[in-house]
Each structure stands twice: as structure tokens, then as C-alpha cells.
């Protein structure tokens, strides 16, 4: 919880603060099975107009982070602490009504499954109109006209007809386009796309991503793309943040993460990207085992149980000491006990093998 002084302190926007900055965010849920630490001290910042990809397996806390920004965690019964600064405004300290006013106008979100995310009982058009009227005092007719425009804009053919369709009457791709339209209808500053393509056919996925990035340019929106699939990140994102067990484990520019990843987990993710043109070599297996239970995280490095290289660390620090997220190069942070040289060596080997497999 934020105490009063800090909120006052945070009242006047400080110029040097980036567009979005999260400062040691903690999110926890009380379940019958105990306290779930979904997010354990995440801090990151994002400049206006850029696209950040948050990557990680399910349960790594990436979606929760998004919902924390949107202020949806409380309604899910979670506890949030830390600071979330959006455009010079601290969100976590605001009253529910104030956050509600920002939702859908300042910041918007696209969800994973467009089918279940659209209300089955209402026409898609009306659902978008509703979003408009929630924030702007314009007539229904005007709102509808705007909606139609938006539907066309997000590339829905025969929008005049589709505007009165029910979600179940649309294809998955169409639904997601509707979701995007709904999200952008109030031209928000920040757009969070939570696994926007996971529920869609591979063919559609590309289109949706394409759409998002073009719209981004157009609206000058800042985008957070949440995904478990490093594959789709490359062409979309400027920066990548890899999450594991509710923590950031590696942050850097997309190029860096692709050319010179250092965290073994990131390497695992990279090597498990499915590609048409290659067999995965026997000699290196992507990440084995299951993600850790958020209730009882292993001591030391959270990734250690699945890490192939923890034995290379002196006196088993991986088992006992929580590693810090430390800069290894400008704008490139890594959370790992391995010495930098060793990490780069491993990274190089793995990438050579992958490249070899390519031939």
C-alpha cells in the first residue's frame, strides 16, 4: 500500500519520468491454498510510442502485470503494492472511480480469447458504442457512426452488416478485430494486448499483429504486447521483457534479446520457437519440466530447477541466493548467477547449434 506522503509526493508529474513506469510492483492473491505472489517486485519503464513485448510462460505473471496496470486486479480480489505511473499520473493510489474513468480512454486492453471476451448477448456494435458512451457525451447516432468507421478501420468487411452481428456469428479473427476496435475507439495512450493471437489460427495471427502495429503508428499509441511466443515478437516489438515466476529475468532491446540473450531461460524460449525450416537438434532440449508453483517458489534462483547450467555456478549460489536483475550492457538487464562471460559463451554455443540446424 502507498502511504499518504508518497501520494502527495507523486502528485506533481516529474518531467524526467518516462511515459509508463512501474516501480517495484507486488501483486498477491489470497487463495485457499495460501498466498499467491503473482508479481514479485517488477519495475520497468516504457517510452511513449514504443512497443514493449512481455514474454513468458503462463503463470509467469505477465498477464497480471497488465491487469495491474489496468487496475483490474482489485476486482479480482488481489492486493497490489508499488507504483504505476502512466503519463505522469500514479494509478495505484487512485480511487476505483478515477481508475475506471481512465480505463478504456487513457489505456485500453485486448484479451486473449475474443469469443469469451465479447458479451454473447449483445451485438458487437452496441458493445463498442457502450465503450464510447462510457467516456464521451455524444449522441447514440454519432457513437454508432464512429463505431462503423472503426470497424471498417480494423478491416472488417461488410461492416455495415457486421455491426449488428452477435459475437458468435463472427469468425475468431473478426472478433479479435472487433476487440481491437473496441480498445482503440477512445484512442487511448496505452494499448495492452494480452496474448491477442493465441486463440486464433496461425494464418490470422499475422494479420492481427500487422493490424496492431499499423494502428499503433497511426494513433501513436504505446503498446504492451503480452505473449508466450518469442516468435511473433521480433517484427513487432522495440523492447522485450522476459518474465519468469513473477519476476523480470531479462530486459533489453528486441535485437539484443534475439542476437545476444544471456539468461538461460530466454535461450530456452528462443530455441523452442517452432520453425518450418528446421528440426530441433537432439543435443539441446528447450526448457524441461513445469513452471514453478507461485505459492511456494524454490529458494535461490527461481529458474534453477529447470536450468541446465546451474551446476556451473560456484558453491551452488543458484540454490540459495536470489539473483538480482543487473545490467550486463547498456539497456540490457539479466537476472542470473552465471558470470557474464560464461553466459555469453553458452548463448553463442546455443545459437550456433540453432544456426547449424538451419542448414
Amino acid at each position, binding site marked *: 500500500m502507498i502511504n499518504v506522503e508518497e501520494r502527495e509526493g507523486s502528485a506533481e508529474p516529474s518531467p524526467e519520468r518516462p511515459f509508463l513506469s512501474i516501480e517495484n510492483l507486488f501483486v498477491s492473491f489470497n487463495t485457499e491454498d495460501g498466498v499467491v505472489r503473482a508479481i514479485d517486485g517488477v519495475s520497468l519503464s516504457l517510452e511513449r510510442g514504443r512497443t514493449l513485448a512481455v514474454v513468458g510462460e503462463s503463470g509467469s505473471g505477465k498477464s497480471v502485470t497488465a491487469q495491474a496496470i*489496468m487496475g*483490474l486486479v482489485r*476486482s479480482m480480489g488481489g492486493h497490489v503494492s508499488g507504483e504505476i505511473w502512466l503519463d505522469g499520473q500514479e494509478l495505484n493510489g487512485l480511487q*476505483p472511480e478515477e481508475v*475506471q*474513468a*481512465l*480505463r*478504456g*480512454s487513457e489505456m*485500453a*486492453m485486448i*484479451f486473449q*480469447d475474443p469469443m*469469451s*471476451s*465479447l*458479451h*454473447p*448477448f449483445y451485438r458487437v456494435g452496441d458493445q463498442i458504442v*457502450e*465503450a464510447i458512451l*462510457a*467516456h464521451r457525451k455524444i449522441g447514440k447516432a454519432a457513437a454508432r457512426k464512429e463505431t462503423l468507421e472503426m470497424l471498417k478501420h480494423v478491416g472488417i468487411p461488410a461492416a455495415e452488416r457486421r455491426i449488428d452481428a*452477435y459475437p*458468435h*456469428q463472427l469468425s475468431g479473427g473478426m472478433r479479435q478485430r472487433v*476487440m481491437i476496435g*473496441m480498445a482503440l475507439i477512445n484512442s487511448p495512450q496505452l494499448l495492452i494486448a494480452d496474448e491477442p493471437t493465441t486463440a486464433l489460427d496461425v494464418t490470422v495471427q499475422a494479420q492481427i499483429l500487422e493490424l496492431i502495429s499499423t494502428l499503433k503508428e497511426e494513433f501513436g499509441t504505446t503498446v504492451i504486447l503480452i505473449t508466450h511466443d518469442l516468435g511473433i515478437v521480433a517484427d513487432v516489438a522495440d523492447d522485450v521483457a522476459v518474465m519468469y515466476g513473477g519476476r523480470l529475468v531479462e530486459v533489453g532491446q528486441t535485437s539484443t534479446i534475439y542476437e545476444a540473450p544471456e539468461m538461460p531461460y530466454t535461450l530456452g524460449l528462443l530455441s523452442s520457437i517452432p520453425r518450418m525450416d528446421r528440426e530441433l537438434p537432439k543435443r539441446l532440449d528447450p526448457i524441461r519440466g513445469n513452471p514453478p508453483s507461485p505459492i511456494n517458489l524454490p529458494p535461490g534462483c527461481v529458474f534453477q530447477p529447470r536450468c541446465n547450467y546451474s551446476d556451473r555456478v560456484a558453491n551452488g549460489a543458484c540454490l540459495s541466493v536470489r539473483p538480482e536483475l543487473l545490467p550486463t550492457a547498456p539497456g540490457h538487464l539479466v537476472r542470473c548467477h552465471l558470470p557474464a562471460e560464461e553466459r555469453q559463451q553458452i548463448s553463442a554455443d546455443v545459437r550456433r547449434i540453432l544456426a547449424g540446424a538451419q542448414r
Partner: protein
Amino acid sequence: MAGYIVRRTLGMVVLLVLLTLAVFVLFSLMPADPARLTCGKACSPQIIENNRHRLELDIPPVEQYQRFVSGIFFGRTYLADTKRPLECEAPCLGYSFLRNQEVLDLITKAAPVTFWLAIGGFVTWMTVGLVFGIVAALKRGRWQDRTVMGIALVGYSLPSFFIGLVLYFFVILFLHLLPNPQWKAGMPFKDLGGFVQTMLLPWITIATLNAAFYMRLTRNQVLEVFGEDYVRTARAKGLKERTVVVKHALRAGLTPIVTAAGLDLAYLLGGAIITENIFNLPGLGSLAIGSVIASDLPLISGITLIAATLIIVANLVVDLLYAVVDPRVRVG
């Protein structure tokens, strides 16, 4: 939508035809030989023959069934070949030779009682169930929730006949808080006060179990939808919490309950049988029991037919309502 209605209606018609058949088959294998029962003590095989003829049991079953069905649409004449034929105008559900009246007359005389019992009970349990269920869901885990669920459990845990009997003995016979229930013709429009006094306990009796059931159902339904993605979307849109709850959550959550309610109308005659007997109400339930005890076949099958038809129609109506509310159904 139109197509859907047509489809379901046709389905209903088929169902009704099957129903007449089922009823006929079911009761043509009844134990006590009705001819024997109306025979009296000085009985001889020949008299049984005569009765069998009177009851038209001496013709082949197929033809019996034909007369049974055609009677419903065109009426029928019993004892056509005797000096005293019995006219039974359409819709003729048969003739009770034990009560010496047309089944339909008996049913129409009894129907209002059950109708008002059912309506009262239904309204009672739906309002109680929905209101308390929603409260419990919104106040999940708090004392309101606990209280409601506690009440629900009590209502759940005792058979309704037991609740009814205890109510009757305690409230009426022991504390004399209410007069003895007595249904008078013309109720409720005549003597509304007496009507309420008569029906109060029956309503409670018939509503208790369902009210409890619907409290739980509603609560779970509402909690269910609060976890739905589209509710999250509604929040993400920045809608007011009230709008989210009422327009997005409740509407979706309560719709299935409407269907369940339609189904539970099916149980109502069953409940009515017990309740009416406890409180001595001259409704269909009492009529049914009487007909069973006397194994008055025409009357039993008549009541079954009427009751089942009502339920089938009710189900159709509910489904159509559902289709209006939930667009997904229309295609399915």
C-alpha cells in the same frame, strides 16, 4: 428466430403425440381391473364383461387408443350401442365411471386450486430465491452470505411433506394462528382474505425446497459470471461497476435460471399432490391421488395428459424466452 420457433413448436407437437401414446400404454398395464372395481360385491364374470364393455375395454387396444385420441379432438360416445349412450364432447379426456362424470369436468373443477397454488408457490420461491441468492453472491463470504446459505440448507434438508405437516400442526392446530384451510369456489376473486389465509401455508410448503434450491443456484450462477472474460472486458471498457454487475453479469448469469425454473414447473404437480393432501385443497393433486387410490384409469390418464401437456408447453415458452435473451440459442 422464426425458424427456431417453428422447429421447436413442431418438436412439441411430436412430443404431445408421443405423450398420448405413452399415457395410454402406461395405464393400459394398470393393476386393478377397472371393470372389476366398478362391479361391486355380488360380482360375476358376466357383470365384469358388461363393465368391460361399458368401459370399452373389450375392443382391441389399437382401437382403444384411436378412440382415446379422436375423443380429444372430436369427442366420443360411450355405450353407443345401448339404451343409454354417454355423450362426451371434445375435448374428451375420457369418462370416469367411478365418479360418473366427464374427466374434463373433474379436471376443470380442480384446476383453479392447483393453478393458484402453483402461481403463488412459484412467485414465492423465485423472488425469495433470486433476491437472497444475488445478495449472497454479492456479499460472498460475509455474514449475509452465510445466513442465506444457512437458511437454504435448512429448507433443503427436510422433505416438503414433513415441513407441510409440521407447519399445519404447529401453526394451525397448535397455535391456532390461521383458520383451517378451506377452499371455496370462486376464490380468490371472492373472499380474497380467506384465499390468502387458506393458501399461505401451502405456498410456503410448496416453495420452501425450491426457494432454497434457487438461492444456491442463483448465488453460484452470479459468482460464475463474475469470473467470465466479458465481465472483465466490461470493466476494461471503464463501465460503471453498477452497469457491469446489472447489465453484463446478472443478465447473463440469471438467464439459465429461467430455464431451470421452467423445468421445475414439472415438479409442481408432484409437489402439489403432497401439499394439497396435507392442506386438504381440492386441486389436481388431490384429484390425482383420489384417482390413483380408486384406480380410476380414465381420470388418471386424463390428469397425466393435462399435466404433461402443460409442462411441455411451459418448457417451449421458456425455451423461446431463453432464445430471446440469449442469441446463441437461436442458431442451435
